[in-house]
């Protein structure tokens, strides 16, 4: 690919391998995610998507292989170190601070708050920079008016949006989303779709997805994972026509075409 030689990828995985006991989940995976692009990682259940995601975010260590971010080797870095480098993630299973309000959830995620995390004296609410940033994020994900509602009292769709909002509050250069549309429909799904579209020229997005229509319409580049190997990678049009992909993914693709 000539484009990737011109501009080095923002995030790159080389030769990733991961086995749990005798079960090889990922075998020699190579992935490249280019800057200011929406890249998707798709594949049927059990393909190794989530394991791959956990390795990229530092929750799991690979048995072999290396991950480079901005050309720097980050294979051994902890999740919090990666977050401080500008890699922010959302979770597939909602992972919010449930007793915190929407505002508290977002505010604690803002780097301006993280930088004064060892301040034991000034009330957290006095941090104007964090407060303003949080208010902006809450508007962006369509939760304005719900600032003081505790996360556990939000509806499911709203919590999905808050999940993305918390990840965005970290001011990412690279936003990694693990099945953001999971269980989402109607208005919240529309908000999410618009949001990804708006963000796609400002930052780099990597998304793991099941919802094929979401992936095909929004991403610039798709990698298909099947039984621990990348079986295809390219623009959505090419993936749609790829015979091997259609074979392992046929049901879902058919469904995507109809909708």
């Amino acid at each position, binding site marked *: 690919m000539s484009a990737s030689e011109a501009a080095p990828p923002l995030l790159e995985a080389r030769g990733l391998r991961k086995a749990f006991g005798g079960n090889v989940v990922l075998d020699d995976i190579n992935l490249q995610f280019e800057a200011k692009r929406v890249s998707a990682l798709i594949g049927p259940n059990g393909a190794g998507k989530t394991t791959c995601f956990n390795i990229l975010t530092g929750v799991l260590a690979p048995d072999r292989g290396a991950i480079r971010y901005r050309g720097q080797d980050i294979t051994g870095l902890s999740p919090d170190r990666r977050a*401080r480098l500008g890699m922010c993630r959302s979770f597939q299973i909602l992972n919010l601070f449930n007793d915190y309000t929407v505002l508290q959830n977002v505010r604690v995620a803002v780097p301006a708050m993280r930088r004064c995390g060892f*301040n034991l004296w000034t009330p957290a609410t006095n941090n104007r920079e964090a407060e303003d940033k949080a208010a902006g994020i809450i508007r962006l994900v369509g939760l304005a008016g719900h600032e003081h509602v505790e996360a556990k009292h939000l509806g499911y769709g709203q919590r999905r949006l808050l999940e993305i909002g918390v990840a965005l509050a970290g001011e990412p250069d690279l936003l990694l989303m693990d099945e953001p549309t999971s269980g989402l429909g109607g208005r919240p799904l529309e908000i999410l779709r618009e949001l990804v579209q708006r963000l796609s020229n400002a930052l780099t997005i990597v998304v793991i997805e099941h919802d094929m229509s979401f992936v095909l319409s929004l991403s610039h580049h798709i990698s298909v994972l099947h039984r621990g190997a990348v079986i295809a990678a390219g623009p959505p049009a090419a993936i749609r026509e790829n015979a091997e992909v259609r074979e392992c993914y046929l049901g879902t693709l058919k469904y995507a075409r109809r909708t």
Partner: protein
Amino acid sequence: MRSLLAEWTPLPMLGMFALFLILPALLPWIGGYTYLGTEVMIWAIFALGYNLLLGHTGLPAFGHGAFFGLGGYFLGMSQKWMTGGLWTPLLIGTLGAAICGAVVALFVARKRGIYFALLTIAFGTMFWFAVFVLDSWTGGEDGLTGIRRLAVGIPGLFQVPLQDNLAFYYFVYALFVALTVVLWRIVRSPFGQVIQAIKQSESRASALGYDTARYKWAVFTLSCAFAGFAGGLYSLARFGAFPEPMSLHQSGNVVLMCLVGGGFASFYGPVLGVAVFLVLRDLFSTLTDHWMLLYGLLFMAIIVFLPEGILGLTQRKRRPAASHDTGAAQAARSEGAASGGPR
């Protein structure tokens, strides 16, 4: 003015301070005595500091009596062999416990759930044994006696002797007020927000860029400093430092105090828990020789029927029923319970 008041001391806190201010006058009417009030405030400092760890960070440390005890021993030893003052030994007691706590925290900060709990018990027991092994310094089983309550004041200007129990009560009262305000600020500070976030989801906090082990180390050390300070005051109150608060079966008292009062539900929970704990101990022991039985049954009843403690009741009324309770939320909560104790 109003917001300034809220930032430093909200209304319930002012009420609590007012109550303790007039308590010595009230105590004789209800069959109490001044020293009981002093003891409540000392243990309240300990419990409020400990609740940073238990209630606010969700870390169930069971050996904190050790640091309470160490504060007393460090104060006593420094008063005996280094300096005869009041403040310097109190500071040494605090720092000594904090340094021991900081070392222990290095080992426990990365542990979770039951492993964290067991390791804190092991370290607590280790310090308890150390007191007996080093009996030429600590007095072993007999305790380190001869600790003096020296006068407080500005040299040359005025001195208030603290031998008298009422004078000592107000000395402790002033420190209790100051430290409660400090702890209130800590809970609402960015640091306080982060530790409460760690309690709710450590994996999320670390995904947001927080080095959670460092925060846990810091809050453990901090709670040990408060324990050491309170332990120092306790040794002044009793004119000696004794090993029993460090023992395995008493080390858990502070946990019980926090749970009974509602340390998970309210900032003030530990204070109420301490008051209930100490007052009932006095009351029941005058009623019957088998007071421990009554005592145990009562606490079991509280834990069973009021799992969030007494002050949990106030929250139960305020909260609407969770209407959107999904499987994911339940899973998140049971994960929290597994790693952090009851919620």
